[in-house]
């Protein structure tokens, strides 16, 4: 078992299966990753790669016909014993405390993540009432403080307003405030800036980065945008068809990608390098390379692993 002080969360050999009439489909296959305490781990991949399903499993949110078919999700709270989230039942008090309490969630769509019929203050305080024993006055005080922290001016007035009175960027700030208000140890951010304009995205990334450093929270940042990964994350795991194909520090993986899929993903971004030329697509970069033969992640040192043929991985080994 890894040192609990180092990691806030460890996923071990996780598989998530969806059963259907046509048989079982494994959306997540044998995925393992660690979220170091106080660090940001980015999980990247295209739609259908299983990155969000993995995140949902962490919160115990996999619903039928889906099920966790294998593996462990070990959560190491700062105080208390490690918990394997996969063993908790839906009615377990502990799962209730973890979900939204110890582990917070920031969703993609600030439009749908907030209830349109409750005031912002109501929604912020609800999280506090559920997870902390506070009275109304204290909850409001904390909520105001939190709104101020995420850069909302005149928070006392804004507290009484409804989501439709906020712009997209402001709503995402409210969603971030909601995720942070119970002082979680881990935050899962699922494409939190994808729906935003590029200037607002820059503001939200800067804010998230600042708050993360201040509070020392660990973050799992799910995105498909490698530009965002480069700016916010310490480590990155690249997912493809339910598996991790490469993981390591952001610098290692983005500057010197080893797996053909990571290379292809980076090459497909319109940039200075391919200006005026046809964009390389995943298929054209991969060519005849079959990336489904070697699925085993091989550690090659310096905290890096890649799913390559053993002899090829050995060549990159440090």
């Amino acid at each position, binding site marked *: 078992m890894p040192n609990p002080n180092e990691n806030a969360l460890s996923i071990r050999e996780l598989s998530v299966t969806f059963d259907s009439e046509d048989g079982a489909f494994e959306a997540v296959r044998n995925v393992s990753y660690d979220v170091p305490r106080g660090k940001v781990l980015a999980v990247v991949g*295209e*739609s259908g790669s299983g990155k969000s399903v993995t995140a949902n499993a962490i919160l115990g949110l996999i619903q039928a016909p889906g099920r966790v078919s294998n593996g462990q999700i070990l959560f190491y709270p700062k105080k208390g014993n490690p918990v394997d989230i996969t063993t908790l039942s839906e009615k377990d008090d502990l799962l209730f405390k973890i979900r939204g309490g110890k582990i917070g969630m920031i969703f993609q769509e600030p439009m749908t993540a907030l209830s349109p019929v409750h005031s912002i203050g109501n929604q912020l305080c609800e999280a506090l009432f559920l997870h902390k024993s506070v009275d109304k006055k204290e909850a409001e005080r904390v909520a105001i403080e939190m709104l101020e922290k995420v850069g909302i001016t005149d928070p006392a007035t804004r507290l009484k307003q409804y989501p439709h009175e906020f712009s*997209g960027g402001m709503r995402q700030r409210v969603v971030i405030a909601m995720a942070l208000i119970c002082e979680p140890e881990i935050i899962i951010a699922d494409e939190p800036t994808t729906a935003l*304009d*590029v*200037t*607002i*995205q*820059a*503001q939200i*990334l*800067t804010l998230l980065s600042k708050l993360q450093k201040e509070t020392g929270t660990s973050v799992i940042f799910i995105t*498909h*945008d*490698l*530009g*965002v*990964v*480069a*700016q916010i994350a310490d480590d990155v795991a690249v997912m493809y068809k339910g598996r991790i194909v490469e993981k390591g520090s*952001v*610098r290692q993986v*983005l*500057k010197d990608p080893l797996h053909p899929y990571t290379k*292809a*993903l*980076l090459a*497909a*971004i*319109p*940039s200075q390098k*391919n*200006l005026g030329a*046809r*964009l*390389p*697509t*995943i*298929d054209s970069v991969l060519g005849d390379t079959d990336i489904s033969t070697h699925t085993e992640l091989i550690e090659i040192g310096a905290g890096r692993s890649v799913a390559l043929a053993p002899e090829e991985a050995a060549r990159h080994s440090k």
Partner: protein
Amino acid sequence: MPTTKPILSVKRLSKRFPIYSDGVVRRVVDNFTAVNDVNFDLMPGETLGIVGESGSGKTTCARCVLRALEPSEGEVIFQSRNGPLDLAQLSEKQLKPLRQEMQMIFQDPFSSLNPRMTVGETVAEPMLIHKLSKGAALKEQVVSILEKVGLAAEHLNRYPHAFSGGQRQRIGIARALIMKPSLIVADESVSALDVSVQAQVINLLQDLQEEFQLTYIFVAHDLSVVKHICDRVLVMRKGEVVESKTTSELFSNPEHGYTRSLLSAIPSPDPDIPLQPIAYKE
């Protein structure tokens, strides 16, 4: 600069939306100017990018050009097959035959296709509306255009739900192309797609442009995509064009403070280039 005439010449284009009073009798109390005094020329085969944040008026501007919205003021001179016409002045009836020559590709491949129509019906529909073809000949045309966009005859009888986002976008492109248009407005047509699918669709749009001499207006908020495919760019903010330049000039030498703030906000996939967004102040 080619010596040919512009295919599209937009002059002093404005669009105002009325703001109504509360109450039972709704009176117009004010106007909201969504597009204000936009001017540009577009040469045949050129790709013009219109960029800006949500609410900047970029989509409204593009829709006014196609008369999907009524412009409040200005001229939209379009070189049709029968000579130049001011689209802003024509009646709906006069516009109808022209609609074949200008088509639109939409943002969301999930909501822009009718879920109850097969791919074949969806792609054939505009031809039937304009009574351009029918029967076996039409089917042949549909198959040929589907093949052009990388789909096949076997897809004809399937419904949109059976396709991925990238494939759906190809269906939308096929539907626009079957009319053999000269002008295509693509409104955020690749923003909902994954980066690898996005690359395929961008390549497809560029191949088709070459093959059919298409002129594109590309409405987008992703500046790296715009940089890749556009010849010229209009930067819009609050309904006005704040900067209009060739793409290479815009990216190497942005003059307007707002353009600079937009460019500075793009996160680079190189971890050694930190994000340093410049705030824009009026």
